[in-house]
């Protein structure tokens, strides 16, 4: 490019503007279409024999995808190796469960409190740990997970329920709706939570805060020297992530009618991790895609029993090493090639293939 054209491009600045505000490129029609389809879907599904089953799968998908997205926000984008996500989910679940079970609150009111308590818990873990390097965060969040498990099993009776967790919590009641009608309402509620979480996380990723966190992840030294307060950015992200995780936890308690201490079992963490890694670590759509894939495949692979865990473990390790970007970039490339009218702006999401450790740069 000659100097003259470069100067002209510099004057008209559309490319720069779009790169800074990529959400403007999302067509209202696409989003509207997806939302409309999601609203109409249950009305069609109830006419099918397996419709209720598919709806419960979708509800499971919504809940898991919210947690996976929140985790990806801090782990994939923020570079915080936190393993406390399941514990925060449990904090949300228990908060709302105890409020309803012991204090007799309305479930709809109680699930509004769970995210707040989860945020408080997250700040409790975040304040001592987030100033530290990655390894320490891994250890201390694992420790928090373990402590939460021990407390849930051996704590006071209104929390531990004698070691099994809360087993008879009141579920969501929508007037007199029962059967399929109730499942439809539950679907809408889960969908609403999923939509809000997805929208907020999307906005966070493309906000100045999101740019700051990506910068911190990709080149810590440079970002800090540009005046980004690493600790504050991480703490805010951690709180946002905990908020939605806690909300999903509260929903899940009143959806299942209880929360069991088996929630702390290691396979839960692995499933969530698999969603993020398979879908695409540090990409916006990755965890959503991954949640869909893992939940969908689970229905077929469940017959394999322990072979499933074996395959999952090896797949996780293999993808992490040989295809660290996951499946999302592949999907995105296909979309750009065949469906997008104009080439999309360069992705803000920078996967682990981008330069990372810059200790040698300065």
């Amino acid at each position, binding site marked *: 490019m000659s100097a003259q054209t470069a100067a002209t491009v510099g004057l008209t600045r559309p490319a720069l503007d779009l790169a800074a505000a990529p959400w403007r490129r999302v067509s209202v029609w696409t989003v509207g279409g997806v939302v409309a389809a999601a609203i109409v879907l249950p009305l069609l599904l109830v006419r099918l024999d397996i419709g209720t089953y598919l709806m419960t799968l979708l509800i499971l998908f919504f809940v898991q995808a919210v947690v996976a997205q929140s985790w990806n926000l801090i782990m994939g984008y923020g570079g915080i*190796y936190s393993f406390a996500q399941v514990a925060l989910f449990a904090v949300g679940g228990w908060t709302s469960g105890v409020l309803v079970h012991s204090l007799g609150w309305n479930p709809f009111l109680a699930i509004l409190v769970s995210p707040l308590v989860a945020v408080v818990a997250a700040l409790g873990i975040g304040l*001592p740990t987030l100033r*530290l390097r*990655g*390894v*320490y965060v*891994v*250890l*201390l969040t*694992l*420790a928090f997970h*373990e*402590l939460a498990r*021990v407390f849930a099993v*051996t704590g006071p009776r209104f929390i531990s329920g004698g070691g099994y967790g809360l087993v008879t919590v009141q579920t969501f009641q929508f007037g007199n709706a029962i059967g399929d009608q109730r499942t439809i309402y539950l679907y809408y509620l889960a969908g609403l939570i999923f939509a809000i979480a997805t929208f907020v996380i999307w906005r966070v990723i493309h906000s100045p805060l999101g740019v700051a966190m990506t910068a911190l992840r990709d080149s810590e030294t440079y970002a800090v020297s540009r005046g980004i307060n690493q600790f504050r950015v991480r703490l805010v992200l951690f709180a946002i992530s905990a908020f939605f995780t806690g909300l999903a936890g509260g929903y899940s308690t009143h959806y299942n009618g209880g929360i069991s201490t088996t929630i702390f079992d*290691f*396979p839960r963490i*692995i499933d969530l*991790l698999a969603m993020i*890694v398979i879908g695409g*670590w540090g990409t916006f759509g990755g965890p959503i895609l991954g949640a869909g894939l893992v939940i969908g495949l689970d229905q077929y692979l469940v017959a394999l029993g*322990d*072979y499933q*865990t*074996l395959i*999952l*473990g*090896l*797949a*996780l*390790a*293999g993808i*992490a*090493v*040989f295809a*660290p970007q996951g499946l999302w970039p592949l999907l995105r490339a296909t979309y750009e090639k065949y469906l997008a009218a104009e080439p999309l702006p360069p992705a803000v999401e920078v*996967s*682990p*293939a*981008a*330069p*990372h*450790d810059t200790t040698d740069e300065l």
Partner: protein
Amino acid sequence: MSTQFVQALWGGILFGSVYGLMALGLTLVWGAVRLLNLAHGAIFVVGSYVAYWVVSSLNLPILVALPIGVLAAAAFAYLMHLIFIRPVIGKPGFDNSTLIATVGVSIAVSAAAILIFNPEYKVIPPVIGGNFTVSEVQITKQGLLVIGTSLALFGLVYLFLTYTRLGMAIRAVSQQQEAASLMAIPVVRTYGMVIAISGALAGLAGVLLSPFFFLNPNSGFNPMIQALIVTIFGGLGSVRGALVAGFVLGIFESFIEVYYGVAWAQPGVFLLIILMLILRPNGLFGIGEVRRL
């Protein structure tokens, strides 16, 4: 000395030496390769199951099974290095990839252990049986062996790192990887050696420890978490730190267990480590980011 005191001290020294042994492997790998090996517990399990298999299926004495288990653990660790660690060495995203890969390996190992054996608890016979009592506390000879082995290994690893060529190569790589490779030290091969040595240490801990805890597919998880705590408490990458911190934490935990009850042991240890991180973020013997090992 009261019975309680002796009991707490004995338990503390025993578990402290085991934590130290596990932490030694972790800290070596972290110091040299900068790899947080979350599959360390899985390697522990591999060593124990191989020893169990040799004893129960081949009917060989435990003294034969011990070295076989240790070698198997080392071989497994080296295999993991070849498949999952070596391809990403020096590439961006090394932290992410290896963290997830080691988690994946550890799930795969515990699933494989369930499939090959079964989820039931297994018992490995102690290398030496028998016990005697001090102030009504049973002191097992196996326990003394564990403590002795652990101390001896710390000594050996120290001598190995200080005086042998490979040991010096490992220290060089951990201090300045580029300078080391300019001195014609095969960096990647050194990484493999460190990981294999660390695997052997984990396997040894597994075989020696299984008579105390029963062996099951997930029995490596808790020792690994304890070893992580010890490693961080002593200072990441510091061999001396792992030794001292292993005993300090082991004795601390044991005294809380005996005097305040088992439920307080873990919260107590976590409180101690958080306090430590606030007061000395680099751990007891941590030397910052510049010099390690």
